[in-house]
């Protein structure tokens, strides 16, 4: 059967795939967008979870295997997927989150939209660890600037050297617990500024609504006032008529010709279980850092015996996730608060960027602090350990009867929490590779992870714990739980757990030590690109989504130019 040849086949519909699809289709190219999950639209009543009350769910919003962040969370996916295992080598304990839906993990992210700073592109020059990027901030800045205006991000211009200014929408005012945090941070000389989140506090166009402050971006917004790839990029691209969406399509491999160039992709139609192929002049992989690496490793041919793009055995290497640690405190001054609606935008309204750049510390790189607390909507888990704070007030914990109602109300909103997100050092030996024996339900070899933190990350976590404790105490708080010590790696999260994994197809100018060039184009096949976090050389302490989007846009411009010049 004669089949259409697309200009571009985009694999994955998250941040990178959405931006690639949007830009390439707008440039007049025909695009096949291939997504392993189902179609999704939060404005569809049958899929809506936003503004539901807890009692509309039999488990009141508790987590499930299919929705680990709660069963109102819009992201369909998780740490375990039916029929799609992954494995860990030896004592590795890597946690791999995968989404299976239109928009991918942008249905799930915290909307925290941080630009990398100038220092973040050449860290090796500064501390001798890892590698420099082949590009600098000045290469990406124009795309960040356009991204801010196209997609929308609230925040503030602060003139900070490594947390660049941008084109921000105005910030929401801090909540009460955040004012406690601000005072605490200032008393310790720690900077605190408005959060930077991709939520529309002000209109940016006629297509999307303005935030109505339900705090539920994680449930996906029916008026598209937050960023997800589907609502902001893919729906408009689909309306343009040059994009065909293939959903429930699980890509097995990139097909290549005898010259080693891509001819398209082979996939499994999950609804029928049948194999199928798409033909394209070029392929953009944006299936997530590890999934794209897996597709490349599974794309073996005579010309690409070790997998596509893997002639130098670098695909899957330098896998790295953010570090993380968190702590919480009881704030006695917030007992018996007046109750009012402070849902606000989703999550924090204020944060602390890394502030010790020039200090001589026993770890490299830095971390930022995300602030939590407030009088949120009860869901499953609310009321557990109802009056545990009585212990700090010399009163008895436990009991039964209507007095518990007073305890619940008394302590409601009296908690302040901090979560740290930091930069790890990409390591050659931290990797994902094909498991030699295990396959998924379609017979495709699965990934095996081999990943260990180093002393850099562990020392950083110790510093995080000290910082959090000092700040929470300065806020008048009684810190909860025991401070994790060396035996627990200072509370350092597991690799993968922060869901910022990047680096598996890193970019570079030297084809011997990198997988793609500085535009995410494979050294080994010029018509294959990677548009997800795989191309990151290092990830900064900045959540990766904003940079994935900017780099995907930059790559799309390059791809169009290369096609116009008949290089592809």
């Amino acid at each position, binding site marked *: 059967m004669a089949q259409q040849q697309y200009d571009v086949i985009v694999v994955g519909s998250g941040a990178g795939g959405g931006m690639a699809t949007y830009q390439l289709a707008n440039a007049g190219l025909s695009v096949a967008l291939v997504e392993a999950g*189902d179609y999704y639209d939060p404005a569809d009543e049958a899929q809506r979870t936003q503004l539901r009350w807890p009692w*509309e769910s039999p488990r009141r919003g508790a987590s499930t295997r*299919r929705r680990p962040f709660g069963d109102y969370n819009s992201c369909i996916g998780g740490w375990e997927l039916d029929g799609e295992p992954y494995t860990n080598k030896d004592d590795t304990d890597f946690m791999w989150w995968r989404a299976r839906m239109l928009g991918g993990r942008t249905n799930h992210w915290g909307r925290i939209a941080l630009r990398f700073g100038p220092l973040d592109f050449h860290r090796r020059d500064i501390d001798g660890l890892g590698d420099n990027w082949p590009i600098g901030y000045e290469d990406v800045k124009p795309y960040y600037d356009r991204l801010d205006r196209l997609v929308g991000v609230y925040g503030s211009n602060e003139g900070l050297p490594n947390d660049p200014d941008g084109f*921000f929408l105005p910030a929401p005012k801090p909540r009460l617990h955040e004012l406690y945090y601000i005072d605490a941070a200032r008393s310790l000389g720690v900077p605190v500024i*408005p959060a930077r989140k991709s939520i529309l506090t002000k209109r940016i166009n006629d297509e999307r609504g*303005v935030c109505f402050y339900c705090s539920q971006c994680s449930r996906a917004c029916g008026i598209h006032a937050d960023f997800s790839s589907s609502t902001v990029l893919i729906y408009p691209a689909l309306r343009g008529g040059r994009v065909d969406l293939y959903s429930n399509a699980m890509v097995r491999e990139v097909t290549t010709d005898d010259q080693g160039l891509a001819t398209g992709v082979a996939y499994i139609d999950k609804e029928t279980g049948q194999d199928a192929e798409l033909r394209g002049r070029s392929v953009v992989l944006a299936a997530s850092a590890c999934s794209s690496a897996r597709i490349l490793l599974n794309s073996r041919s005579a010309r690409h015996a070790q997998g596509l793009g893997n002639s130098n055995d670098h695909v899957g290497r330098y896998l790295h996730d953010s570090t993380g640690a968190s702590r919480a405190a009881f704030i006695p001054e917030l007992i018996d608060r*007046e109750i009012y*609606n402070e849902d606000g935008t989703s999550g924090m309204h204020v944060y602390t960027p890394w502030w010790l750049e020039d200090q001589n510390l026993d770890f490299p790189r830095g971390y930022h602090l995300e602030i939590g607390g407030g009088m949120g909507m009860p869901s*499953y888990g609310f009321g557990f350990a109802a009056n545990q704070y009585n212990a700090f007030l010399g009163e008895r914990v436990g009991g039964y009867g209507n007095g518990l109602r007073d305890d619940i109300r008394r302590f409601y909103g009296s908690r302040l929490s901090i979560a740290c997100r930091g930069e790890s050092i990409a390591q050659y030996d931290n990797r994902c590779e094909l498991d030699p024996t295990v396959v998924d339900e379609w017979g495709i070899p699965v990934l095996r992870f081999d990943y260990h933190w180093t002393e850099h990350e562990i020392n950083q976590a110790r510093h995080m714990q000290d910082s959090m404790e000092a700040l929470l105490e300065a806020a008048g708080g009684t810190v909860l739980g025991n401070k994790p010590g060396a035996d627990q790696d200072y509370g350092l999260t597991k690799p993968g757990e922060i869901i910022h994994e990047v680096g598996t197809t890193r970019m570079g100018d030297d084809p011997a030590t990198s997988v793609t060039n500085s535009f995410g184009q494979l050294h080994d096949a010029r018509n294959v690109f990677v548009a997800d976090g795989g191309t990151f050389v290092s990830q900064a302490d900045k959540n990766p989504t904003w940079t994935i989007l900017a780099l995907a846009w930059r790559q799309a411009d390059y791809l169009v130019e290369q096609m116009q010049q008949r290089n592809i």
Partner: protein
Amino acid sequence: MDRRAYLQSLFLAPLAGSLIASSARAQDASTIDWTRLPSSYSYGRTEAEKQTDAELFAESYFREHELLTIAVLCDIILPGDHPNGGALDAGLPDFVEFMVKDRQQYKLPVRGGIAWLDNYALDNYGADFIHIEESQRLAICDAIAYPDVDTPELQPGIAFFSLMRNLTLTGYYTTEAGIRDLGYVGNRPNVWDGVPEAVLQKHGKQYDTEWLNKCVDQSRREITAEWDDDGNLIS
């Protein structure tokens, strides 16, 4: 869908199930009754999720005696003599039953906890928990409701009671009555414009001008954003 149509569609959406007030009391445990919760829900589920939930609802795990014991405990933890109703009015036994089936790790602790409770009641009062006097039941609860009690033989009961208290309270505060009892007033479209002035004063806090200048002027939220070339918002 525009904002107005979207919000209208929300208010037209039917609530899952209906709550019927119950005046059941636990004086005579054999006649205890409670508001029944729905056995099917519709809230944006995938087909696979619908299937899983249908299987959970169809599963029969607890024996009648165990369910009655759960109901009696729920009623003791959050009694009904309150304007916002208690655990039985809020259908808590059904909720606890569902959660125990949903979370496999609760199955054995709850079954074993009930058995421990019955053994303790039998040893001390000559009958299982729901068949002793209410005063005797409360005496047992007084012994196991406080985690600071370090009597070794009571520890299994204390752990069980804590679990039942957690499930009862979380179940109650996630119902309409519980939300009303708490006073939570969110989960609705609104325009957040900061902490109320009186609250700021009470807590000795204030917004400083420099920070406020970075914040949204809510009277201009519908005016499309424009910036100058340096990233300064000018609309």
